[in-house]
């Protein structure tokens, strides 16, 4: 579904991604973990070209990701993205947030788009918030609305860029529950997160990144029980002691 080959990325002099090779199969859930500044968010953003790649190749469903223009917009329509800061459109109701892209990009009628939107809002458990503005919702509700908005495009892949990092602790669970359900339904997912519990529970594969490189890649049990590199062992020792 996603194939990344020899991806390199620089921010000025700073080499943020080094020779990344990654393959995500249809229906697979890949969780990317690692210390801050390790390049995991940048990798996630490169997958739908919110960041341009320095060199290397990204194939989505066998097709090279277009560089710009309408082809790129079409690619992004098939790749859902959920942000750390939710990024709901502040001037539109939750329902309109979910309906906008299906109407403008997919050409759905208002009635069709509204039906899909209401179904999805019910699925993420916030059906009764449909008429509210994003600012009136809690963080957890906003993030679930953002997931519904991405799902409304019927994407082939969902990217999650630290979806729970901006949430109060008691709201993390409600968002992770939606994501676990999505994974169980067979969605192909790339999830950048610090939630080790989610990685154990829902991941098919854990990718550990440090300093712009993929250091280790393994099934969650193998990775958490017996990491093979010192860097991964150090990282886990720090995050799992609490």
């Amino acid at each position, binding site marked *: 579904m996603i194939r990344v080959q020899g991806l390199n990325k620089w921010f000025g002099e700073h080499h943020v991604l080094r020779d990344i090779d990654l393959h995500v199969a249809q229906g697979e859930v890949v969780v990317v973990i690692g210390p801050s500044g390790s390049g995991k968010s940048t990798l996630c953003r490169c997958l739908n070209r919110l960041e341009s790649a320095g060199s290397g190749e990204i194939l989505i469903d066998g097709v090279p990701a277009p560089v710009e223009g309408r082809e790129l917009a079409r690619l992004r329509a098939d790749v859902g993205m959920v942000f750390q800061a939710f990024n709901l459109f*502040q001037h539109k109701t939750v329902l309109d947030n979910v309906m906008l*892209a299906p109407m403008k990009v997919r050409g759905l009628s208002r009635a069709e788009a509204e039906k899909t939107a209401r179904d999805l809002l019910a699925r993420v458990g916030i059906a009764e918030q449909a008429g509210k503005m994003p600012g009136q919702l809690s963080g957890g509700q906003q993030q679930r609305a953002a997931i519904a908005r991405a799902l409304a495009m019927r994407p082939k892949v969902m990217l999650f860029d630290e979806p729970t990092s901006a949430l109060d602790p008691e709201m993390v669970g409600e968002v992770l529950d939606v994501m676990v359900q999505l994974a169980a339904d067979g969605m192909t997912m790339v999830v950048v997160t610090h939630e080790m519990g989610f990685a154990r529970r829902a991941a098919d594969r854990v990718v550990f990144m440090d300093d712009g490189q993929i250091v280790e890649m393994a099934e969650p049990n193998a990775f958490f029980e017996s990491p093979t590199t010192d860097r991964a062992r150090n990282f886990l020792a720090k995050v799992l002691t609490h």
Partner: protein
Amino acid sequence: MSALLDHLPEFWQGLIVTLQLTAASFAGAAVMGLVIAALRVSPVPVLRGIGTAYVETLQNLPLLVLLVLAVFGLPEIGLQAGLQVTATVVIALYEGAYIAEALRSGVNAVSSGQGEAARALGLTFGQSLRHVVLPQALRTVIQPIGNIFIALTMNTSLAAAVGVVELTAAANRVNLLEAQPIPIFVGAGLAYAVIAACAGLVTGRLERRLAVVR
């Protein structure tokens, strides 16, 4: 006072021309401003360059110079139009540069995540600007655009210098007959003040009604 009251029809005619100049050139300036602001935030460098050149040129020349150049210069190259039409177009193009800058600051005030989320959903650059970024940008620049509207209203009086008989020119003509500048120009000034006050009321209302819950 009688100087004012005896010439009400002339004042009225002048006020109507001022209102026509204001309304038509503000409409033109709004369209122009939208286009130029879109150019200035475009990802294409050439388009950004065109937008910047436009703003720098029109903001850095006095309106009076532009009016005189247009009225006397355009017929030289075969473009003939009525004085009021020429003045309307020149004021629209000039104020368009200011509206573009106000809009651009509004666009910059919208968090970059909004545009990213729109693009991540597959909206094209134009669609994300139109449906997501500009509606939010507009809400933050209602007040500055109201101020530009007021400045534009006052600037229409420069059209008097190129022969358009709007409120200021009408007042001047009445003064040539009556030689009572104080009541005549205070009267004209009050008319401008009323237009400006109305604009202030409207922008205040719009701001309250369109406020975004954050």
